[in-house]
Each structure stands twice: as C-alpha cells, then as structure tokens.
C-alpha cells in the first residue's frame, strides 16, 4: 500500500495523530503537497462521505475523520498557500441574524472543509451585510445561510436581495438550509440551492462552485 493509501485509511479510522505523522513522512519522502491532499486526505474523506451516505458509518465517525483531516491539512496548508494552489473554492457560511443555532452550520463547515473548500465561518446572528461583505473580501463564490426558526428565515431573503442589489448574483451563489427551511422556501426567495443536510449541502455547493460566472 502506498503512503497516500495509508493516509486515506488512517483518516477513515479517525486516527488524527497517525494521519499527521503519515503526512509528515510523505512530505519528508518528497511527496508533493497537492498529491497528498488529493490522493490521501480528500480521497479518504470521499470514502467517508460515501459510507455515510450509504449509512455504513454514522455522524460521530464522520466527525472523527474530519478531525483527522484537519490534522493533516494543518501541515499541508502553508505549503499549498506558498505554491498558490487553488482550493475547491471559498464558501462563506453563517447562521442568519437573530438565530443563535450553529450545530448544523458547523457540520456543513466541517464537511465542506473535508471536501477541499476554504470555509469562512462567520458564526451565528450574522447580519446580511456581513455575509455579502465577507464573500467579496474573501473572493467566495458561495454563501451558505442557516436558519432554524421561521422568524429568522426572512433574513435569508434579505441576503438574496442584497446580493442582487449589489449586482453580484452571477458571481455569488446562495445556498440555504436549516430545520425550518425547505426546497420550496429556497425557490420562493430566489436562493440558488437548498441543502437538506450537511452531506447534500456539500454536493449542492460543489455544483454551485462549478457553475460558470
């Protein structure tokens, strides 16, 4: 088995120390950081995501794998940044103004990072202007909005309208999710996608990030 396969396998078991150690070893052996990222970490997370979708493993296993991914990524990121290697894209996420729930949003952030995206997490209770400003500042192509309450869902529409008012709708796509949110709601407010859960959100963000501007 190659060291990249070992990294992927360790990541699937959620062994964070082992992943870090193997990534270090791969770098010492002269392996390219991009190859380690894609052939080891992202490949491993891809298997984890597939197993999760097939209900062969469960949320805690995915989160252990995510922590292992971060352990490896922490070593690779400086090298990737130095070489100017592009990521899968940048996504700004947050819970909308008035909403303090953040577990679902955090899960989406973890899954997106595992899929190779740069994630800018603005936290909870975030004003529409902050979402749009952050997307511009970080060059994000997607904004992910989370709301758990029917009383905070209208803020999602405010963000959609703000993006349009600034003429950014071709450059910045919006995905919405959360307990009270539905596909119908996403269409009603003019959002570009709806994520039923963290796994489907990642798929939808992938598709949005591929959409040509």
């Amino acid at each position: 088995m190659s060291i990249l396969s070992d990294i992927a396998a360790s990541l699937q078991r959620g062994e964070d120390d082992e992943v870090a150690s193997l990534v270090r070893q791969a770098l010492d052996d002269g392996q390219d950081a991009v190859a380690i990222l894609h052939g080891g970490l992202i490949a491993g997370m891809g298997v984890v995501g597939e197993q999760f979708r097939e209900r062969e493993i469960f949320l805690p296993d995915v989160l252990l794998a995510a922590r292992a991914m971060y352990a490896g990524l922490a070593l690779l990121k400086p090298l990737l940044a130095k070489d100017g290697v592009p990521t899968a894209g940048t996504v700004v996420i947050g819970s909308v103004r008035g909403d303090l729930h953040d577990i679902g949003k955090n899960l989406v952030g973890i899954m997106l990072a595992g899929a190779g995206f740069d994630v800018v997490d603005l936290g909870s209770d975030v004003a529409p202007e902050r979402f749009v400003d952050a997307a511009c500042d970080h060059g994000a192509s997607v904004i992910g909005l989370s709301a758990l309450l029917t009383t905070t869902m209208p803020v999602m529409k405010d963000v959609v309208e703000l993006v349009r008012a600034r003429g950014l709708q071709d450059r910045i796509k919006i995905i919405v999710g959360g307990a009270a949110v539905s596909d119908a709601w996403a269409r009603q407010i003019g959002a570009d996608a709806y994520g039923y859960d963290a796994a489907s959100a990642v798929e939808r963000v992938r598709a949005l990030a591929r959409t040509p501007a």
Partner: protein
Amino acid sequence: MKQRIEWRPADTLPERGEVLRLQGIPAGVDPSRRVLSIVESAEAVYLEIAEPRALVADISQEAFAAVYRGEGRNAPVTPIEAVVARADALALFVATVGARITDRIRTLFAENEPALAVMVDAVASAAADRLTHLIADRRAALADHAAGRGRLTLGYSPGYCGWHVSGQRALFACLQPEAIGVTLNASCLMDPLKSVSGVLAAGPADIHRVAPGYEFCADCKTKTCIGRVQRWPIPASAG
C-alpha cells in the same frame, strides 16, 4: 400556582439509545467502541455542568386559549387545539439544562473536537426533551393522569405542529421564566439554547394520536408526533 423544579443532572441524563438516535444511529445498531467512548465523555460533560431546572404552572383551557392565540399567526387548523380540548389537565412549562452546556459545545468546536461537541449537543437536547416528562412526574395533576392506565402527558411547543413560534411571547409573558434564567430574543429564540417550552397536556393516550396530514406537516423534519406516543409505553390493557 407556579412551581420551580430543580433536578440533579444525574436524574435527567437521557437514555443512551435516544442520544444515539439523534446522531443518526438507529436502534439495533451497535456503535463502535470509539463512538461509545465519545458518548461516555459527553455524558460526563453533561453530569459535570448541566443545571436542569423548570418552571411550571397549571392553566385552564380558557386561559391557555389566550396564550395559544398569541399574535394570531398559528396555522388555521392544528392538532394542538383538538388535543387541548380533550385534555383533563394542562400546564405551561419552560425547562432548561442551562447555559454552561451551550458554552462548552462552542468551546469544543473551537478546540477541534467536533465529534464530542455534537455528542454533547445530542445529550443536552435529549435531556431537555426528557425534562418535559420529568415535570409531569413532579406535578401532581399531571402525574396522576400519567400514572393511570392508558393515560399520557405530552408536551406541545411553539414552533411545532402549527403553533407559531411567535407564541413564545405570550407564553413567556404568562409564565415569566426569566426567574429560572431563560429569556427570549427578538426572534423568539430561547436563551439558553438548550431549553424547551410549551404546554403539557394530560389525558387519555388517544388524545395525542395525530395523523400527520396537516399542510405544515409536509415541511416537518422531526415527524415525532406518532413515535413519541409509542415511545412512552401505555399498558397493553389500556383502552
């Protein structure tokens, strides 16, 4: 009359099966040792820092009707109206497991411990739900009904089953749970987050049997309305 209830965390620890269910692990599936170890760590966090408490007050059907009406934003027809009309006893309640749990969950995320953070969240959510049943045990009018054959006390909350979440304002004005440290923000969100509120309705178990065919049921992601009647055992001989 209002009653303040406090529990020791150990008396409110939820069943492990319920915690696993919230993590997407169905009954009958044996989680790995690693996952079980995370559950044990999450339970330890809960036992260390939870502050479970509640405020409860009996309420008449007439008085509840005013609270339920709230700001007039409920769905036109809801199952709650039918449940309440057939209930023998009602009580408004707000219960919480405290703010320290939410703080710890945020800290765990910040410390790159997402698996434990989400598990602590599941333990706290299941514990908060369990408080509604523990209130019934401590409240004579509700417990008497719950203890009888074929009788059941269940809670209904603003934000669910057609009761608009803005109904929290009328509920809070009536019960004033600030006395136990629970407040409401402009979005009708409770602080601490791991809090539950609503009305406890006691009566024959059948009053709680709801056919999920209302318009708002289509968007409901919890769909626990039938399951929770089944989860709380009713004697087989009950009619």
